């Protein structure tokens, strides 16, 4: 009896923590399956919060936090959640986490809290978060779900940080509020007003998508 049990355990070696399959959860959304540039989700906040790097970083961190923990909790509860009310349950989990983030920012990063204003609250409606819960966390184990959420969050984060980098640099000649061009002695650097407006984000996003698709050869299916 004991022998057969042992054999069964040997038969099923556990999957390494970062197996090839799991690595794909993290790496896919960074490029080939990027939530912003390929799936075109989360555009609203990508345009709105990216005028400066600092609030963008905070936004990226907030989204990452919300995604990881909402995926974790949804995945832990996935067999308990009644299928008929699953969307509401997911929404309740996301909304609670977002409110928590909002309260913490209010207490410890008041200036960023005011700058981001409604956009932290709007993480609730960010399609990336709910999309991952519905498509992945509801049907997969907690660890895999967390990896998947982390991948998507990083895919979202690197794009908005890249957009914010160019918008702050070209729009106000600064990085993290530090006047780059003035300090390298190029004080007449012509800042571009377009980059400060949301239109600038569209243009940079478009350029990123262009470069990315030229490299990966991705073509939309009609």
């Amino acid at each position, binding site marked *: 009896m004991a022998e057969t049990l042992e054999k069964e355990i040997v038969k099923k070696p556990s999957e390494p923590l970062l197996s090839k399959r799991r690595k794909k959860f993290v790496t896919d959304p960074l490029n080939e399956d990027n939530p912003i540039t390929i799936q075109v989700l989360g555009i609203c906040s990508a345009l*709105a919060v990216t005028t400066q790097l600092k609030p963008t970083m905070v936004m990226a961190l907030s989204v990452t936090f919300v995604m990881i923990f909402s995926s974790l909790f949804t995945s832990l509860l996935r067999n*308990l*959640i*009644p*299928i*008929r*009310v699953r969307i*509401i*349950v997911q929404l*309740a*989990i996301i909304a*609670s986490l977002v*409110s*928590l983030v909002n*309260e*913490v920012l*209010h*207490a*410890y990063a*008041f*200036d960023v809290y*005011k700058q981001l*204003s*409604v956009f932290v609250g709007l993480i609730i409606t960010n399609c990336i978060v709910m999309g991952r819960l519905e498509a992945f966390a509801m049907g997969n184990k907690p660890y895999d779900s967390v990896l998947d959420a982390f991948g998507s969050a990083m895919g979202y984060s690197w794009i908005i940080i890249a957009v914010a980098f160019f918008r702050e640099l070209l729009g106000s000649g600064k990085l993290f*509020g530090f006047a780059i061009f003035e300090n390298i002695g190029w004080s007449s650097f012509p800042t571009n007003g377009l980059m400060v407006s*949301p239109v600038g984000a569209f243009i940079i996003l478009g350029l990123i998508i262009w470069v990315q698709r030229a490299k990966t050869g991705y073509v939309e299916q009609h």
Partner: protein
Amino acid sequence: MQRSNTYIVIFSLILTIVLGGLLSLASVGLRPAQKRAEELATKRQILSAVMEVDPNANILPIFDKRIKTIVVDIKGNIIESDEMGNPIDASDVDIERQFKLKPEERMYPVFMFHDENDPDDIKAYIFAFYGNGLWDNIWGYVALETDMNTITGVVFDHAAETPGLGARITEKQVEERYDGKKIFNEEGVLVSVDMLKGENNPPAALNEHKVNGMSGATITGKGVNRMLKNYFEFYLPYIERLKGKDQKVARLLSN
């Protein structure tokens, strides 16, 4: 798997209670830190109506060194204690709560910006304003020069104006439009300063009492106008009193 209705109801109930409980805990636990952050932001705003404030500077010592405060009522009398006899500190006056009272019952804080070394050498008077924007409340601080007529600087803030439109009242570029404007006309009657509709009004339309507005945010602009007009009127008795004092000093000097 199809679950029974009872299961769904109980599941939702438990979820609501757990999440609600967690959120209330977080809210109560973080409240003191949030209060501190807000106080700091308010003091920063008050200071930035009269001086350039370095974003990394430690605000509280500067505030204590440069600002002294009093509280006045609608008749311009200085109030020193509340009904219970406790002393009042202008920094503790919750302007939002005061706004809900009738104008006659409100307390109006006045912040006096003075010389670093001589607290009697007052450079500017800063008044607190509160009003309604388009979606929610707006508020601000307006600093008057000692002639009690010329605006040295303003800061506005808001709870929920539209980002990019009404929320622009917090932008320096908009606030600077008020610098140097006058609140009294030549006859000495209070006219306040009005924000016009639209952004690019011809120079002829602008004068000492009129500033350019914000396109797409006319209602927020009207809210700002109403707020300024109302509160200048509430502060008027006190302002007149200070003006009188100033003129007396001037008369003494000229004699």
